[in-house]
C-alpha cells in the first residue's frame, strides 16, 4: 500500500488541510470530504477553554499539525512548539517563522535554527520554507522529518510558481517534500503530486470556495490522480525531448 510515512506514523491520505482561514463549523465536513488525516492548527488561534476554539472542531483521529505562525524568529517558534506540546497537541509541529508581514515569506535561516532545537527535543519537525536546495539540506541535517516548500506566496492561489525548485528538492532530498502554500486549484495540487511531492497542503483555496466541502472533495481526487500518475511513471516523451527516428550515434564503427 502506498503510504505517507512521517514521524513514525503512516497516512493513506496525502492531503493536508490548513485550517486557518475556515469557518470552524465546516472544518469537520471539509476534513471528511477531503479525506485529510492531518490538519494544521495555528496555535495562536487555539482558544483553549474559550470561544471558537479550533481544537473543538477537529474530529478525533486526525493528526494535529500545530504550526508556529506568529513566530518571527527561532526562539518564538520554539516557545510556541513547546506550548503546543503542553496543550496536548502531540509531537508534530510545522515550523513557520515569518518576518515579513507583506508577503509572509518564511525566514529560512531562523527556521533551520528552530528545527535543530526542536528535533533534539523529540518533535517531529516539518519546516515551512522557501525552496532553496542548500537550506533544505541544512533542514534535513538539522533533523527535519519532512520539508514543506512554498509553491507561491501564502493565500495567493497562484499555484506552483516555484515548480522547478521544488522538483530539485524532490530529486535531491530524501525526505517527504510537501508543497505548502500557494496552491489555488485542484489541477495545481495534481501537478505537484505528478512531480513527486509527497503531499500537498491547502487552505485558502478551499476555505474561500463557494462550496468548501465540494472543493475539498475535488482536491482529494486531484491529489490521488497526481499521485497515481507519479507512481505509474510518465513516458519518456514527457520527461525528455522526443526520440530521434534514427540513432544519433549510428556512425560509430
Amino acid at each position, binding site marked *: 500500500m502506498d503510504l505517507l510515512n512521517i514521524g513514525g506514523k503512516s497516512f493513506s491520505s496525502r492531503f493536508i488541510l490548513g485550517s486557518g*482561514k475556515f469557518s470552524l463549523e465546516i472544518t469537520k465536513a471539509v476534513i471528511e470530504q477531503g479525506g485529510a488525516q492531518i490538519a494544521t492548527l495555528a*496555535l*495562536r488561534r487555539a482558544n483553549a477553554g474559550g*470561544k471558537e476554539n479550533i481544537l473543538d472542531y477537529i474530529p478525533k483521529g486526525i493528526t494535529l499539525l500545530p504550526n508556529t505562525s506568529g513566530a518571527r524568529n527561532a526562539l518564538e517558534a520554539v516557545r510556541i512548539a513547546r506550548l503546543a506540546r503542553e496543550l496536548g497537541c502531540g509531537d508534530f509541529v510545522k515550523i513557520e517563522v515569518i518576518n515579513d508581514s*507583506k508577503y509572509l515569506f518564511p525566514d529560512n535561516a531562523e527556521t533551520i535554527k528552530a528545527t535543530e532545537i526542536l528535533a533534539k527535543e523529540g518533535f517531529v519537525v516539518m519546516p515551512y520554507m522557501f525552496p532553496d536546495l542548500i537550506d533544505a539540506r541544512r533542514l534535513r541535517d538539522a533533523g527535519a522529518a519532512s520539508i514543506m516548500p512554498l509553491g507561491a506566496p501564502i*493565500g495567493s492561489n497562484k499555484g506552483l510558481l516555484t515548480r522547478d525548485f521544488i522538483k530539485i528538492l524532490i530529486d535531491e532530498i530524501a525526505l517527504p517534500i510537501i508543497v505548502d502554500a500557494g496552491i489555488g486549484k485542484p489541477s495545481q495540487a495534481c501537478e505537484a503530486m505528478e512531480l513527486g511531492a509527497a503531499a500537498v497542503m491547502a487552505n*485558502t483555496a478551499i476555505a*474561500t470556495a463557494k462550496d468548501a466541502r465540494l472543493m475539498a472533495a475535488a482536491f482529494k481526487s486531484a491529489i490521488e490522480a497526481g499521485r497515481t500518475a507519479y507512481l505509474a511513471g510518465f513516458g519518456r516523451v514527457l520527461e525528455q525531448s522526443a526520440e530521434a527516428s534514427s540513432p544519433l550515434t549510428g556512425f560509430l564503427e
Partner: protein
Amino acid sequence: MSTTQKSDHMKYLADMEIIDSDIMNAVLSQTADYDYTAYQKSDVLNALKKDVIDFYDYRALLSPAAEELLEDIAKRARQETRKRFGNSVSMFTPLYISNYCVNQCLYCGFNCKNKITRGKLSYDETESELKAIAETGLKEILLLTGESKKLSDVKYIGEAVRLAAKYFSTVGIEIYPLNSGEYAYLHSCGADFVSVYQETYDTDAYELYHPGGPKRVYPYRFNAQERAVIGGMRGVSFGALLGLHDFRKDAYAAGLHAYYLQQKYPHAEISFSVPRLRAYKNNAENNPRDVREKQLLQVLFAYRIFMPSASITISTRERAGFRDNVIGLAANKISAGVRVGVGGHESEKKGDEQFEIADGRSVAEVHEAILNKGLQPVYTDYL
C-alpha cells in the same frame, strides 16, 4: 499684531525624541502632488486589471472618478480580503482608562476646554473592568487614554497594560505619542500594538485643528509609529480622521505612510482604521461632512487593494448595518461591546465619552452577526 505667539507646530519640543527618518518628507511631498481630479475611469479600470497596484493606481482608486466604479472595486477588494484573511474576522474591544487631556483638538470630546466629566480608573477599577470584559470571551483589548503626562503617565499606562496582559492574549494601546524608550517599556509590560492617528496629514490644517497642547507638534505625532516599531512593538496602526480636511488626500497620505513604514520595517504588522468625525457632548453638530458611507467605503477599498496584507478595523463610529457588510469585504477586524467613556463595563463610568458611538451591540451580538455573514469570529490570533 497678535498678542499670543503660537508655537511652531513643525518644531519638536524638548524631550521629544527625533529619529532618523525620511518617511514624513516622502509622504508630504507625494501628497502635495496628488491631484485627484486628474484621474479618469479608465485609470481605475487599468488599476483593477493589475496584480499589484502602484502609487498611480492607488491615487486613481481614491479619486472621484472611482466612485462610479465602486462595485467593480468592491469585487477586487473582497478578493484581496479573502485571500489574506479567508473567513476570519478578529474581535476586540477598547477600554478607556482615562480621559484627562491637555490638548485642544477642535473635533474631539476630550478637548481640555470641553466641559465634560473627567476621570481615570484606579488599578483596582481597571482590573475589574478587564475582568468584566474578559468574561464576554474577548481576548484582545485596546487601552486608551487622553493625553496627560501628569494624570495618565507612562508608568500608570504600563501598570494597566500589565493588568490587561493577565486577562488578554493581545494588548494594544491608543494613547499619546511616546519616545521609543517609552514604547519599549510598555512593550515589556505586555503591549504589542500601537495605534496613532494623524487626524489630518495637511500640515496647515493640522495646525488649525490643534491650537494647543503637545499634540500640536506634527512631526512628533507623524513619527510615532516608527518609534513604536523601534521600541519593539509588533504592529502599528494608521489612519486619518475622515471629514476633518480633504479626505482623499488624507487617505492617500495615510496609505503612503503605512507603505513606507512597511518598506523600512518588513516585519511590522500594519493596520488601518477609518475613523469618521462623530458628534460628541456639547457638539452634537460634529459630522463627517463630505465623507458619506460611499466615500468611506471607497477609502476602505483603496487601503485594502493598495496594501492587501494590512489589517483593517471598522469601529463603532459606524452603524451596525454598515459594519456587518464591510467585514469580509474590506475589513477583517471589528470591535464589540464598546464603551467610549472611562470604564463603564463593570461599574458606572468615571468619565464622559470621546464621541457618540453608532453601534452599541454586545460581543455576543456581534459574534452572531459575523456568523450570519458566513464568516468566522476570531478571538485570539496572537500568543
